[in-house]
Structure formats: C-alpha cells, structure tokens
C-alpha cells in the first residue's frame, strides 16, 4: 500500500477524512494509477466509463432513427444516411455496449469478490482486455466518423463485399480487435472461477451470478473466434476480391451467414445470461428468500449457453439454406425456451411468500421478468418456420430482439448497477429518484417497442427510412414509438445524473445496505484493494435468507444484525 506516498496530497487527505479506511478508490491517485491499474475493481470502472460512452453514441443514433420515422416521408435524412444510422446504432450497441456491459463492468467487479478472491487470475490480461476494447472501439468509431458504414451491423455479403464503398474494413477491424477483449475477459473468468474460489466455496455455494458468468465465458471463448475469422474473411474478400462469398466466382454467400450467426446467435446469450445472473441476485436479496431450485437455475445457464450454439440456422430461414436444416434448427430453437422458462418460473416461485421490497434494483428485476418473457415468447413464435417467413425483416423482429436486448439485458444492467452502486462507490443513490427513473424507463421502453410488434405484423419492414402515408395507423404507431423513445431517453438520463451526483453528495453506504448474504457484502464499501482483509472461509450455502419479519421475531443474532443493516463480521468462520 502506498499510504505514505499520498499523505501529502490534499485530495487524498479530503478522501481520507471521508473514508476512514483505505479502499481501492483512495489507495492510489493520479491518472496513471488508473490507466496502469491491475485491480479488477478499477478496471471495472474503466469499462463502466467507456461502455457508457459508447452507449451514448449508440443512443444518439437511435434517436436519429426514431426522429426520421416520425413522418412517413424520408425527410430528415436520405436513405443512404439512414442505412448508416441503423448500422452505427447496431454496431455500437451490440459490439461495444451490450456484449461488454454486464460482464466487463459488474462481472469484473464482482466475480473475484463473490468467490472470495483477491483479484482475477490474470490481472495484467484483464487490463490488456480493456486496452484492446478501447483500441477496437476507437478504430470502429473513427470509421463511423470518416463517413460510416452502411451494411447493417450484420455485415451481410454481398452488401459488405461487393456493394458497399464505405469503411467496412476499418469498422470490421475494430470489431475483430474488440473480439479479443471479450475472449480475454472470458478466459480470465473461467480460470478464476475454477482456481481462485475461497476455502469452502464449493460449486453449489456459488452465487448464480457466477454460474451465469461462467456460461457467458464459455460463449466468449468458443463463439467469438468464429466471428473474428469471419470478419477477417470479409476484409480479405474486400481487399483481394477472390470470391470467398461471391457466387460469380464459386463462393457461397450463405456460408457467411452460417459463420456469422454461429457467433452472433450465441452473442445474444452473452447479453442476456449475465443479466439473468444479476436478476437471480436481485430477486434473492430483495425478497429475502433463497432462489427456488438453485441447481436448476445454475444448470439452465449452462444449458442456454450450450443450446445457444445449436440454433443459429433460424436466422437463415429465408436464405437458400436447405429446408431440412431449417426444420432441425427450428426444432432446437424451441428447446432453448425450456431452460429460459426454468429460470422465469423459478424466479417467480422465489418471490412467492417472500418479503418483497420495492427498492430500485427489484423494480428493474420485475421489469426484466416481464419484458424478457415477452421477448422470449415472441422468440418462440419466430422459431416457427412458417411464422418467421411471414415476419422476416419486419419490425416484429426488431421489437422482439429489443425486448430481449433492452428489456432484458439493459434492465439487468441497470438493476445490477443500482444494487451494487453502494459497494462500488461507497455511496447510496437517491432511492426516490431511482424508483421514479425505473418507472419512466419501463413506460418509455414499452411505448417505444410494443407498437413495433404491431407495425411489424402489419408488414413494416426494418431498415427502411420511409413508409406509406396512406395507412394512417402506421404513422400513429411510429409516433407512439418515437414518443416512447424520448421518454426512455429521459428515463436513462436520470440515473446518469443521480449516479454522478451520489458520488459526491450521496449518503455513505454501509458495508451491507440491503442486507445481502454474498461475500462481496462482507467487506467494507468500497472494498480494499485486495477485497478482503483475510481470505474468507465459507461455511454457509448461497442465499441463506430468512424473511425480515422472521428475523425480527426470532430476535438477536447475526440475521437481526443484517436486517438492521449492520455490517456482519468479516469472517464468520473465525468468530
């Protein structure tokens, strides 16, 4: 520790007076101490800032798209520009926000703490992954600034090879590089979870957050390299024109779709699985009950990760893919609904007779369950060959995946951010504003995307900047959607403002404000650099919650202390 080094620093002194203990935030100062840090908690914050930056860019493009669709005519932008808008929105949101959002921020922060480790197994690789992420982000972002890409985030051939004269290679290079950041994060998690668990932390005592991150890491490791090589082939094709995917020279464009979706379908589970892990934690904590059917929820994460690799062909139903393969892919796609439903039912069963609190994190968990169910059920509809052909490339699909990605992954991310904000910063966010913002987000989200189901079913195609004016209902629905997007935007800005506010003016957070049972809550907020003063020894199962009322009636003891928000002893085994 470098306590002496910074003693003269005035800022350090101020921090010290506010935080009597040395923690990871005040252990060291200066920009260098952040940019060269090997502490997983600081790297998580680096990711938090950069992920938020790319989210704002992606959000701005979304706003432009919604503005254009306010009127039937293509009046705000030309079709060329519109192509770029949705491409940029997709690339930024998928590759630079949704995929790293939960794993690289909350996952980075919490995985070592939840298993009782001092850090991830490879701290330097962890830092490297952030630099790779930034390099990829900057390259792709510069491609957008130079003039953009108009192929759609899917880079389908032949748009991306023969017919686009935009910066496909540069944007692709950024995504290629960014992929290795995901791979390194996944590698770190897998090794850490296998080798760094605290004594007594057996696999079935792990929080479900860890299980879902383990499953996510599997996809990172086994899926991401395939998109990397696919993008490499796109670049090769653009530079050398040898007909890798060009039928005129003997290539097969559908092969690109196979390779692309082999990663990009599991990538959807990269987005949703960590959110599911977050929601498991939120529901257990805020209903004061152990998760119903722990092992089912744990294994359903792995099942989703594995089945997720077997269904990519349902994105190719309208390509020249063989109908027989289509049938197989359709059938397996239905199967994915099973582990997803196991989770939803078990969360619901967990809430039964629990002491449900309506704190902000729990509101987001509620939102997640409802919206994910809608997104998931429409997904089952789309897995059916006949229906899918009917609504392919319509707003029905757009609404479906936004219900999963925004309604699912975003809600999980926001809920998790609120739940662990006291741990991350040592400050409480304002609860009233939190609940209000959650409500605004929920209303705004549904108003944005529910009309899109109707639009899509009526035949509004995606990726069009104009639509017929002679059906007034279409414009009504589009106006609703745009209005919803404005509300959603405001709802997302509110947490941004009060999170920043709370870092300076928020109430000090106790070590365990909720109070929860996880290891990360058994160390001060914010935690010290190596997380725990002494390596904890785990002698209890995951989620040993009892309802608050019960704890109060039974009287004193550890649970009552927890109920009162008093920090439990750091190491129960030794007391």
């Amino acid at each position, binding site marked *: 520790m470098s306590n002496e080094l910074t003693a003269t620093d005035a800022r350090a002194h101020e921090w010290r007076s506010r935080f009597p203990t040395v923690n990871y935030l005040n252990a060291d100062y200066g920009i260098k101490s952040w940019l060269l840090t090997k502490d997983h908690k600081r790297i998580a914050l680096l990711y938090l800032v950069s992920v938020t930056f790319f989210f704002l860019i992606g959000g701005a493009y979304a706003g432009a798209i919604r503005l254009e669709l306010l009127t039937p005519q293509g009046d705000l932008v030309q079709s060329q520009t519109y192509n770029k808008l949705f491409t940029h929105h997709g690339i930024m949101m998928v590759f630079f926000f949704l995929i790293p959002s939960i794993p690289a921020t909350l996952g980075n922060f919490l995985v070592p703490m939840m298993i009782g480790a001092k850090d991830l197994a490879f701290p330097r690789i962890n830092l490297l992954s952030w630099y790779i992420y930034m390099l990829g982000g900057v390259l792709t972002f510069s491609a957008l600034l130079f003039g953009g890409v108009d192929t759609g985030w899917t880079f389908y051939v032949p748009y991306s090879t023969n017919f686009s004269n935009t910066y496909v290679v540069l944007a692709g290079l950024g995504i290629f590089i960014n992929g290795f950041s995901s791979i390194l994060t996944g590698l770190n998690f897998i090794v850490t979870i*296998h080798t760094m668990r605290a004594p007594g932390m057996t696999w079935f005592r792990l929080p479900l957050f860890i299980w879902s991150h383990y499953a996510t890491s599997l996809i990172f490791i*086994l899926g991401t390299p*395939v998109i990397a090589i696919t993008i490499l082939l796109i670049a090769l094709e653009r530079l050398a024109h040898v007909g890798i995917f060009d039928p005129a020279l003997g290539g097969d464009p*559908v*092969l690109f779709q*196979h390779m692309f979706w*082999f990663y990009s379908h599991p990538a959807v589970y990269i987005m949703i699985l960590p959110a599911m892990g977050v929601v498991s934690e939120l529901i257990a904590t805020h209903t004061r009950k152990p998760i119903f059917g722990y092992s089912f929820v744990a294994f359903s994460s792995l099942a989703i990760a594995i089945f997720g*690799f*077997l269904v*990519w*062909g349902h994105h*190719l139903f309208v390509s*020249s*893919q*063989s*109908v*027989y*393969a289509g049938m*197989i*892919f359709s059938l397996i796609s239905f199967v994915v609904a099973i582990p997803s439903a196991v989770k939803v039912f078990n969360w619901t069963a967990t809430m039964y007779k629990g002491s449900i609190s309506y704190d902000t994190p729990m509101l987001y968990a509620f939102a997640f369950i409802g919206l994910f169910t809608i997104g998931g059920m429409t997904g089952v509809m789309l897995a059916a060959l006949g229906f899918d052909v009917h609504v392919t490339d319509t707003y029905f699909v757009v609404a479906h995946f936004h219900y999963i990605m925004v309604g699912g992954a975003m809600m999980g991310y926001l809920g998790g951010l609120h739940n662990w904000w006291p741990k991350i910063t040592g400050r409480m966010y304002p609860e009233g504003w939190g609940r209000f913002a959650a409500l605004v987000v929920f209303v705004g989200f549904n108003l944005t995307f529910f009309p899109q189901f109707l639009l899509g079913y009526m035949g509004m195609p995606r990726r069009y900047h104009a639509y017929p004016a002679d059906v007034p209902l279409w414009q009504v629905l589009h106006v609703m959607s745009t209005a919803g997007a404005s509300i959603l935007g405001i709802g997302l800005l509110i947490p941004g403002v009060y999170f920043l506010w709370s870092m300076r003016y928020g109430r000090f957070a106790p070590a365990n404000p909720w109070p929860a049972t996880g290891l990360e809550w058994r160390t001060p907020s914010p935690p010290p650099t190596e997380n725990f003063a002494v390596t904890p020894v785990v002698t209890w199962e995951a989620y040993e919650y009892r309802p608050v009322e019960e704890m109060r009636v039974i009287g004193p003891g550890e649970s009552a202390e927890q109920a009162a928000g008093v920090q439990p002893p750091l190491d129960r085994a030794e007391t």
Partner: protein
Amino acid sequence: MSVHIVPRKIYFSVFAALLVLTGTTVFAATIPFGRMNDVVAMTIAVTKMMLVLLFFMHVRYSSRLIWVIVASMFFWLLILLLLTLTDYSSRSWFGPTVIT
C-alpha cells in the same frame, strides 16, 4: 509440486511414431482409393494429433478438467462443422432449382 515428469523415452517413441505416420500418410495419398483417401488421411491425422495431445501436451497426465476442455473444444468444432453440413448436404434433397 506434483509435476509428472514424462520420461524422455516416451518423447522419443512418440516422435518416431509421428515420423512413421507422416510417411504412411504420404505413401497412402499416392495410391488412389477414391473417397477412402480422405478417410485414411484423416484417421492418420487424428492419430497423430492424439499422440501430440496425450504425450507432448501431457493431457494423459493432466487433471480431468483439462480432459473436459479438450473434449469440449472438439465438440464445439464438430457443432460448427456438422450443423453447417446439415444445410449443405440436404440442399439437393428438395426441389430441382436449389443450387448446391
């Protein structure tokens, strides 16, 4: 430390086996067996790979976790190859206009 030191004799035997198998595969390739050429070549290649994996890479002496990782990487590679093949191998079954 529980490091299992593989005797040098094993390394040399594996090396010899790999060279012999290389010779065999080259020889077999010069004889036209029709489709069996691929089967022979791939069988020999898989055998060589197993030798390298088990002995040079010490998988034979490693924990079960390493076995699981090795097994799962082949499993996933097979998913990629075989599920894509379900498409390509069945395209011609249906309708005369489907281009294979």
